[in-house]
Every structure is written in C-alpha cells, then in structure tokens.
C-alpha cells in the first residue's frame, strides 16, 4: 500500500545542505502497525511528514494506494490527506474555542459531506472513542487523554486507509497512553493501517513492526516479538465504517 523508493530529503539553509533523508526504501502493507523510532535528527519526523503527504521528497518515488504521491500537486496532496490519511499529533492540534463535535466534523467539511450526515458521523466517531457525553465540550474543557481521543475521532471520520500518529502519547500520562494505544490496536484490528512515530520503547512495543531511523537512513526494521496488548475500553465502532472502507 505504501512504497517509498530511494527517498531523499534535503533542507537548505543558506549554503548549508542538510540531508534529512538519504535514500530511504520502505514499504508498508495494508493492516500493518508500524512504529518508527530513532533519536532526534535521525529523520523520523521528516519521513513521517513525507508519508503523511504534508511534505514532498527532494528525490525518490512514493506510492500510496497506487497513487504517485511524489508527482502530486498541492491540491491533490490536500485531497489525499483529507480522504486517505488520518492524523494524530503529540499536541492534539484541535481547533481552540471549537467544540469536540465541530472539530470532528472538520475533515468532512473539506470533503463536502452534507451538514446532517456530518453531524451523524461525527457523533458516531465520538461515541466510538467513548466521548458521547463530551461532544459539546471545547478542547480546554477536556483532559489530555480526552483531547487525544477527539483527535482520533477526527482522524477516523473520513474512513482513512492509514492513521499517522506523531508521538501521540508524548503529552499523556501512562494510563491515558495505554488507553490511546488500545484504541490504535483495535482500529488496526479493524483493518486500518497505523504508522506511529515514538521515542518510547514501551509504546513502540504495542506495534507489530519497529523501524529504526539513524542519520537519515533505516538502521533496522524488525517484527515485534512479544507484543504488548493494551487493556482499554472496547472500541464501539460500528461495522458501517469498515463496510464503507472496503467498498471504496
């Protein structure tokens, strides 16, 4: 589903060239749960940005779901982010002064879903992550774990192929972290691929495969042997989502 071939990313500041990625090859299949690890400056965030279609590589080829991302225009990238990728960030990145419901509706606003359907789907997604009683709360009225769950609900509403999570537990306590990882594991079981950037080995253990970056290259790529299973509330996500996902 994802195929990176010889991806190079160069940042130029004045005369100094920084090769953040120096020829990365990586493929991720549908239904995988990959953790990307590495020290800061290893290129893992750059890789995440390119995988998430937020940034374009300086050289190399990137295919996502048979689309050649490396040659897409800005508008096409926006559309791909909207329809195929769900983002979860370390700092949640919810719109301030905007209710949980409206935050979750936002991606559908940009994909042209009608008002009624938008609200219905947003409510479903919020109750799936256990926030049915918090839909009208603003981000500053929610705990970190709750905010991250709103962000996950937001990433789900357009039935993405893949969820990109950039240090999703970085700002959370261990209990909330486990809850969030439980949600990711359950989503993964439903067939959604998850790519997770983290520097915490404990969190990486929840994934199925760990890719280590070092100096802009993949250092190691191995299957997780004794995988942790997060104990959390069962995800109450209805089958309709999966049916729609499969019917695409």
């Amino acid at each position: 589903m994802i195929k990176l071939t010889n991806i190079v990313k160069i940042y130029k500041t004045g005369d100094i060239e920084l090769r953040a990625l120096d020829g990365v090859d990586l493929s991720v299949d549908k239904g995988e749960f990959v953790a990307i690890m590495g020290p800061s400056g290893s290129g893992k965030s750059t890789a995440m940005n390119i995988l998430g279609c937020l940034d374009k590589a300086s050289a190399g080829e990137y295919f996502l779901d048979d689309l050649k991302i490396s040659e897409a225009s800005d508008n096409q990238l926006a559309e791909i982010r909207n329809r195929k990728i769900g983002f979860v960030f370390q700092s949640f990145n919810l719109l301030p002064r905007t209710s949980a419901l409206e935050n979750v509706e936002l991606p559908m606003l940009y994909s042209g879903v009608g008002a009624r359907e938008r609200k219905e789907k947003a409510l479903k997604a919020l109750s799936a992550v256990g926030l049915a009683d918090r839909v009208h709360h603003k981000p500053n009225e929610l705990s970190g774990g709750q905010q991250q769950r709103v962000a996950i609900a937001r990433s789900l509403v357009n039935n993405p192929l893949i969820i990109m999570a950039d240090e999703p537990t970085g700002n959370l306590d261990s209990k909330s972290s486990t809850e969030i990882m439980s949600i990711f594991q359950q989503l993964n079981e439903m067939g959604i691929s998850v790519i997770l950037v983290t520097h915490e080995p404990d969190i990486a253990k929840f994934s199925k495969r760990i890719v280590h970056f070092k100096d802009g290259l993949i250092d190691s790529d191995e299957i997780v042997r004794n995988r942790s299973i997060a104990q959390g509330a069962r995800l109450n996500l209805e089958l309709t989502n999966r049916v729609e996902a499969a019917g695409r």
Partner: protein
Amino acid sequence: MNFFENIRVAFRGLKSNKLRSALTMLGIIIGVGAVIVMVAIGQGAKASVTNQIQGLGSNLIMVSPGRSNTGGVRGGAGSMSNISMDDVSAIQTNADAVQAVAPVANTQAQVVLGSQNTATQIIGTTPSYAQVRNQPVAMGRFISDKDLKDNAKVAVVGTTVVQDLMGSANANIVGQIIKINRVPFQVIGVLQSKGSSGANNNDDQIIVPLTTAQTRLIGNKSVRTVYVEAKSSDQMNTAYVEIEQILRHRHKLTSSAADDFSITSQTDILSTAEGVTQSLTLLLSGIAAISLLVGGIGIMNIMLVSVTERTREIGIRKAIGAKRRTIMFQFLIEAVVLSALGGLLGILFGFGGSSLLNRFAGMTSQMSASSVVMAFIFSAAIGIIFGVFPAQKASKLDPIEALRYE
C-alpha cells in the same frame, strides 16, 4: 466546502474575537457613515440652493444696464440708465422666445403707517412681474394694467413690511393708506411669503406700479432691471440671443463694440451654484472616502494579525485537507464580512446622522439611494481589496511549519 459554510466559519472566527472585530468594523462604520452624511449634506445644500434660484421665477433672464464710464471713472454694474421703456417693449414684441417681460425700477424708501415706520425696498414694475418672478399675492390683488396707466398710488406689500408696520405678519393691512416717502399709497394686496434667498429678504419689499414709482418716488424714467421669462427652458438660449440682438440694434452698437448692458440667465446662476455645491460635495465626500480607506487599512492590519495568530489553526486545517483556495476564501470572507457588516452599520449611522442634522442643526441634508448603494459596494470592495493580501499569506503557509508554530 460550500459558500454558506465558509460564511459560517468566517462569522465564528469573528465572534471569537468580538471586541477586536467591533473596533475594526468601527473604522468602516465611521467611513461609510461619513460618506453618507457628507453626500447628504452636499445634496441638501444643492437642493436648497436650486430651490431658491428656481424661486426667483422660472426660465428667468435678467437684463440690466452696463457700467457707466464717465471721464475714466467706472461705475458699478447697472450704474448706467440706458435701458428705456422702448427697449422693454421692443423685447416684448420682437423676441419670439420671450413669454413675458417685467421692467423694474427700484429704490429704497421710508414707509410710514400711523406711528410705525420702516425702511424697505420699493419695486416699481408692471403686472407681469407676478408671473415672471413667480410672486403671487396671498391677500387682495396684484397691481393691474389700469393702475399702471393711471399712475395709481397703490401698493402690494411683503409680509415683513406688514409685520413691521402692523406688529403682526397676519394683520389685515389691505385698504390701509401707507406713506412712502410722504406720498400716500393705498395697500391693495399682500405678497405670498417666499422667505429669504441669501441676504435678500423677498418678503421685505413693496411693489408699486412702475409709472408711479418713476414719477413719484424716483424722479426719472430709467429702468434698473428687466426680468424676462422665456417660453420654455429649451428656449432660454434663443431668448438670450434675441434680447442681445434687439438691444445691440436699438443701442446702435457697431459689431466690434462691447455690449452696453448685461444679460444673466437663471441657468447661468444655477450652473454656477451647482458647480459650487458640486465641489463642496466632492470635497466632503473626498474627506469621508479617505476615512473609509483608513478603515480598509485597519481591516488589512487586523487580518494580518489574525493570520499570524491563527497560524496553527491554518496548519491544522491544511493537514486535515483544506486546500489553498479554501483557506484563502475563509480569510477573504472574514475580511468581507467585517467590511460589509461595517458598511451596513455605517449606513444606519449615516441615516441617523443626517436625520439628526436635519432635526437639530437645521440643515437640509438629503440621503440619496445612490450614495447608500455606492457606500455599501465600496465598503465590500475594500474588504476584498484589503483582505486579499492577508488571505493569500494565510493560504501560502506551509502546513508543517504552521503546525510547529507556537
């Protein structure tokens, strides 16, 4: 994302910062309000000046003698007395475009009634004066051809004169004998009040037959001014040329000699006055337009601040799938909503302002629909013009950097 949702998002953005939005709008409100009030004042001034000039009579042309020039000493306009009654009748009979002619000889005189007295303007003229100068009587009758022929000592008085002599403008003066320069005149009518035009009080005058004025009050046969009414406004120019030709011919002027009389038409006065009020309106609305421009710059300023402040929001929206165009529209619509809403409120302010002026400052301001529409369109356009730059800035933000922005 459709248009209405864009507007909804824009309103939400503005609502989240109410005070700032209100203050930004204030610039536009003041600008639009000022434009509307200023144009209303200009229009009102124009209307009242036009009204006063129209009140002189309709399709009016004034002929007066030229300046005297005795041994190099130049007199003022009308100081010569070279327009005779024969000139007047020549104009009356020979000029085709002329409807009526009213020669006037006037003087200042002391008027006495019983123990009261006043100094006023005495106008000696013919019966056609009532028509030519649009001066009907409110009570009694105007002077007649018979009065003129008989040198009758009769007078039609203005309401200010009645007020001065009787103590009340409504007192019945018809039938009383007043003394003008010690000559007794019988009052036969009262002029309808016209109010003053400029420094000239149209109600402070007494009209007597021309012949009586010339023989009893002035002592010579000269005519000071001839008021001519053209048959229609289209024939004003023809009448003007005809009168000039007739007088030049009768005064035996060679083709190289200058006119020894002057002709002024109402349209000349009107266009001069209109020119003045026009430039007044332009000046006032120019100043107001500058304040509108300043309001527009205020909008741009606030939108730029808003874009910087909401960099992260823009990043989130872009990451989630908003296209450049969508972000651009969001901020552009915010700017337009600000300015258009300000425009609407400004129109209300303009309405309020000009009716306050009418009520309390005694000004006649006239709101015109065109200025309202113009002001609104202009303010919305200002929103677009000054909103484009910040909106473009927002739409060009790089999502990764925008997301990283603290």
